[in-house]
């Protein structure tokens, strides 16, 4: 019997990966996008180190031995890392690399070696893809802003504001913006948006919004920030201009810039329910390992995965942040 067929049979009998581990452990490589300190992923606040750590933690209870490679944001290095993974005779490669040409070459070499792959965020030819659903995440933001306006500012004129790296040429940002506008217009069809482009420097959200607020005295503002650091700076501008009563922010990401442990007193916190930051849509990039490694095991068990599996995004607020991310800074 082929190994994969045998494993698929085990799974079909209701025996999960833990039971299969008694038969075999798998060597799985993660080639990470970029672990350079200070570099963040996908226009959000997550780091490559956080993503890698999620694999390290998730692997603890699974029948896998992990190998880690850092593509360092370089296509040539990604190809070299894939070659190293092939030489190490891994059972599966999880590839996170944004260079399409390099991914085509990696896919070709993996096919020759007979090694299956999973792609993270960016497509790898022939490999199932796991990543965010940027448009859906944006839509959650839009829904939250629209619902807030209907609940709290009924029959009042409101204006939408988009803050972030709006000129980013990648599809992720434009998909998020599209989702935000679609979502909010389900409840506020005529809502207009102003765009404040931070040019990739979230700190600029403070000055940009402060200046904008001066031109919009008394205007109710529904603010969508494209990352959490921008939300923190935007909140600062709102507070400094004493506009808390007519501004609300919903952000994208839910990274550690905006939420933390029980003692950290970050913006989204159960004890900070009066914040103008209503919440942030979670992308869970610091938990990818928990979603992706089970997919990898299913693939290794011979299962055909859907071409694309997406993160189950959700709006995280002060009311549920400690349920989504249980803090462990108490004992």
């Amino acid at each position, binding site marked *: 019997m082929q190994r994969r067929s045998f494993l698929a049979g085990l799974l079909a009998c209701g025996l999960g990966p833990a039971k299969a581990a008694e038969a075999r452990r798998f060597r799985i490589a993660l080639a990470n996008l970029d672990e350079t300190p200070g570099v963040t992923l996908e226009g959000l606040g997550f780091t490559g180190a956080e993503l890698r750590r999620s694999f*390290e933690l998730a692997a603890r209870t699974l029948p896998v031995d992990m190998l880690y490679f850092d593509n360092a944001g370089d296509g040539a290095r990604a190809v070299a890392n894939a070659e190293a993974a092939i030489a190490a005779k891994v059972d599966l490669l999880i590839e996170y690399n944004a260079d399409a040409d390099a991914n085509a070459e990696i896919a070709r070499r993996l096919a020759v070696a007979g090694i299956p792959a999973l792609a993270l965020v960016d497509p790898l030819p022939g490999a199932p893809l796991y990543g965010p659903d940027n448009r859906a995440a944006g839509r959650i933001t839009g829904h939250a802003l629209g619902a807030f306006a209907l*609940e709290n500012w009924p029959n009042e004129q409101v204006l939408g504001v988009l803050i972030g790296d709006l000129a980013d040429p990648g599809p992720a940002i434009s998909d998020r913006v599209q989702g935000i506008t679609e979502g909010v217009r389900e409840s506020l069809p005529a809502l207009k948006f102003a765009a404040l482009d931070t040019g990739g420097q979230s700190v600029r959200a403070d000055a940009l919004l402060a200046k904008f607020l001066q031109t919009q005295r008394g205007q109710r503002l529904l603010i969508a920030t494209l990352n959490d650091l921008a939300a923190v700076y935007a909140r600062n501008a709102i507070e400094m201009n004493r506009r808390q009563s007519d501004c609300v922010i919903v952000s994208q990401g839910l990274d550690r810039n905006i939420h933390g442990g029980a*003692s950290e007193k970050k913006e989204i916190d159960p004890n900070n329910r009066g914040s103008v930051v209503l919440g942030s849509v979670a992308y869970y990039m610091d938990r990818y390992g928990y979603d992706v490694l089970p997919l990898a095991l299913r693939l290794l068990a011979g299962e055909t995965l859907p071409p694309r599996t997406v993160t189950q995004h959700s709006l995280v607020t002060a009311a549920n942040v400690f349920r989504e991310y249980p803090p462990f*800074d*108490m004992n």
Partner: protein
Amino acid sequence: MTIAGFAAFMGISVLSLLGLSTPASAEADCKALVAPSPFGPDDQTGATNRVTPVVTKAAAAEIQTGVVTSMAYDLVDGIPLFGTRFSKTILTSFAVVPGAEYGNNKLSYMEDTYLSQSHVGTHIDGMGHIGVQDCYYNQTPMGKYVTQNYLKRLGLENIKTFATRGVIIDAVKVFQAAGKLKANPACKSPCLDAGTLITEVDLQAGLKMYNVTLREGDAVFINTGWGDLFKQYPAQNTAYNSGEPGITDTAAKWLASQKVIAVGADTWAVEVIPGENKDIAFPVHKTLLTDNGIHIIENVRTDLISVAAASSNRATFFLSMTVPKAVGTTGTFVNIEAIQ
């Protein structure tokens, strides 16, 4: 904005604005959330019920050489504390000032005021420390028993005694022997890294190293080596608090099945952090304290007794630890000694 709208914006309910009870603060079904105590429906003591005179007498037989080994760290400014936790003392010493002495014999005195949270340094968690919603040990609906200053049930005054046998399990040796030790580079001596799972198999291997079989009433201590970072305070406080090696929930359940009375470690939570399940908070605390009444002892200095065990080939000792009868408290710093 209406009151309801404003309240919704603020994330609070109108009921709470009006001072009425809310669904969130309603009593949970504690019988569904917490296991009953094996010591009866009125029990507030927990596992120290198991320390009977027979248990203490048997433990006394562990004293063979009289050698005493400290198992507590100094409680001093600079040790790792979480977030807003603090531990300060104020020294009252005015009677030392010339002329302020008492009597012709010029008696002087000094004393301290503690301004400290209780869960600092080497400390014990009591039954009032951890629950699920408002349900605590022995299905106690603690919402009824919380006052501004103390608990009206499950306080430390209900503890019986820790005059029992202590057992040290050296997880560092277990992992070294198994060739699976992944150390943290900040440790100056061998340690398990943060997030390392210590399973019941590892615990059993550690016991087997010294030919120890757990018995009812034992207090179990685990040496992970992580305490090395505590000893480097304050330089490694952030690293120490960032996570820790520790037992899994399954291992905790196994220890509970052995009817131990306490589980301690040279870590700040005894259990593995980050936990096995990203969505579950402190499962071992719930298993040991809430479901089984087993005390957790944190920041225990386990390195010295581990060395002593290795040199004497004896991993058991008489446990010397007392807990103040501090009424209605959830925990306290303690001193611990192992007497062999």
